[in-house]
């Protein structure tokens, strides 16, 4: 059955009313050159046949591999209750929660999410989330440009290449000068970053841990930025933020992150969750929704979307940003995850992930020819160098049911033999032993 309910007779009668004699004639005002030559669609199938076809494709997925893939996205344990709670229809089907009188539950959930993220990053203000970590970085740069009225952005090359590519794309038609400061063998070159900051700099953009998994302390850099009246934008991995020195205590002005690791599953590229926080001084530049807590005339607590005067439905062209949505359900998921784990659980998750990384490091570097890329401190992810191109080794290990890691040569020239290996609380010592054994065999 085609999904067009009209019979040939009904179509002909409608054409008669309009006064044309065929569908072709109905569209003749559209020049032939602007019409698709073909929609290149296969013949229709029955619903059953489509289901069979799709499940056959789905069966080709190799699930259940031992995964050491990180590179910004991490497979952490999610308590089963998280999904059950966010699947409640009040949350699952909610649309725009603008109307405080009808959306107290959603607004309270957003407010609590913002509070949790602020505490995790030790920052003053958070928004209700952005689309993903990369969008959050772009919006953070725009905040800095508006606030400082300057247009130069200093970017650490150890910032995720995915984010750097997104920034490139999103700023390509804007008058922004981006200066990339090369990494130093997988560590952030903090001296060079500091030296690059000048009177025209709006912001310096760094990541902790950086893309190579290296844990950095950017306090001194943030101080140099402040001396030059530039802002420090830091992208952080939220699970590790529970144990590392917080970005707020390092003096960051805007802190963003990919919230996927807070209880969102890895599912072929999304949906993701952009976390976005700033100091109080910058809150009017913070894009997107912000839920606030207030009191009504009788003194009863109520939740509202606040600071609306920054937004495009009020300020039009002068709006802070044209983001007018957020990842509400994903933000709720992250919030429920944080509540289920609690601060202690979140730290345990981080510490376990880091302990497994140390076990993995010991096992992998014991394999002949495998070495650490550098000896910098790391969190739950580290880079090793191999005697062979890393993508070949990854392909070989995939045959053994192990996703060995992320080949760094894909984004960094000269690092073709380097492999980024991540562990989370979901990995086991047995999986790491399999990875080490597989690596030994592949080399």
């Amino acid at each position, binding site marked *: 059955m085609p999904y067009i309910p009209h019979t040939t007779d009904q179509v002909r009668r409608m054409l008669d009313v309009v006064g044309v004699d065929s569908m072709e004639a109905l569209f003749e005002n559209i020049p032939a050159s602007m019409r698709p030559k073909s929609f290149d669609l296969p013949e229709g199938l029955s619903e059953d046949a489509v289901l069979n076809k799709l499940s056959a494709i789905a069966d080709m997925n190799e699930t259940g591999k031992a995964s050491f893939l990180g590179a910004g996205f991490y497979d952490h344990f999610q308590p089963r209750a998280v999904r059950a709670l966010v699947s409640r229809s009040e949350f699952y089907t909610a649309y725009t929660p603008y109307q405080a009188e009808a959306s107290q539950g959603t607004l309270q959930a957003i407010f609590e999410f913002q509070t949790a993220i602020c505490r995790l990053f030790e920052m003053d203000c958070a928004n209700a989330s952005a689309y993903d970590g990369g969008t959050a970085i772009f919006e953070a740069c725009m905040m800095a440009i508006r606030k400082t009225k300057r247009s130069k952005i200093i970017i650490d090359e150890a910032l995720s290449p995915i984010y750097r590519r997104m920034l490139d794309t999103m700023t390509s038609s804007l008058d922004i000068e981006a200066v990339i400061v090369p990494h130093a063998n997988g560590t952030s070159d903090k001296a060079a970053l500091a030296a690059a900051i000048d009177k025209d700099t709006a912001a310096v953009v760094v990541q902790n841990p950086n893309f190579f998994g290296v844990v950095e302390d950017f306090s001194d850099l943030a101080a140099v930025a402040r001396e030059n009246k530039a802002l420090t934008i830091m992208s952080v991995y939220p699970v590790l933020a529970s144990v590392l020195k917080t970005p707020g205590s390092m003096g960051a002005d805007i802190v963003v992150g990919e919230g996927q690791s807070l209880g969102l599953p890895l599912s072929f590229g999304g949906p993701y969750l952009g976390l976005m926080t700033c100091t109080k001084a910058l809150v*009017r530049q913070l894009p997107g929704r912000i839920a606030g807590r207030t009191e009504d005339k009788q003194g009863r607590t109520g939740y509202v979307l606040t600071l609306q*005067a*920054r937004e495009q439905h*009020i*300020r039009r062209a*002068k709006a802070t940003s044209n983001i007018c949505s957020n990842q509400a359900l994903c933000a709720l998921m992250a919030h429920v995850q944080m509540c289920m784990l609690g601060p202690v659980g979140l730290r345990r998750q981080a510490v376990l992930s880091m302990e497994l990384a140390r076990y993995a490091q010991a096992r992998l570097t014991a394999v002949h020819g495998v070495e650490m890329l550098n000896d910098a401190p790391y969190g739950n992810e580290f880079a090793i160098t191999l005697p062979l191109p890393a993508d070949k080794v990854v392909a070989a290990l995939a045959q053994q049911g192990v996703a060995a890691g992320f080949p760094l040569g894909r984004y960094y020239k000269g690092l073709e033999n380097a492999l980024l290996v991540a562990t989370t609380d979901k990995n086991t010592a047995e999986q790491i032993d399999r990875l080490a054994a597989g690596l030994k065999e592949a080399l």
Partner: protein
Amino acid sequence: MIPDDLLYTRTHEWLKQEGETALIGITHFAQEQLGDLTFIELPAPGDTIEAGEEMGTIESVKAASEIYAPVDGDVLEINEDLESSPELVNEDPYGEGWLIRIRPSGDLDDLLSPSEYADLVESETE
């Protein structure tokens, strides 16, 4: 509420000459139209302003509006009390709620007299 010792703009700012310098604010009519003010963004001392150009922003509970410079000039001082108490503009737009002090470098001839401004307000309220 249109003091007769001030000059006015068509965009509802007022200017008060005080010797070599001048104070700038927004009128009673403007603050009434905006409603409760929540935030005021002003230029910084040392900045220059240009007649008719935007020199700041006023946010109220329902809108955000631009403040336009009545004349060319250099900003000498800003009303720092407004940072924590923007409601001063609602309460006393011609006194405690002044916005900035400038040294005018341009001509004041294009500004409206109190009676001209009264006509403008009348036409806008009709």
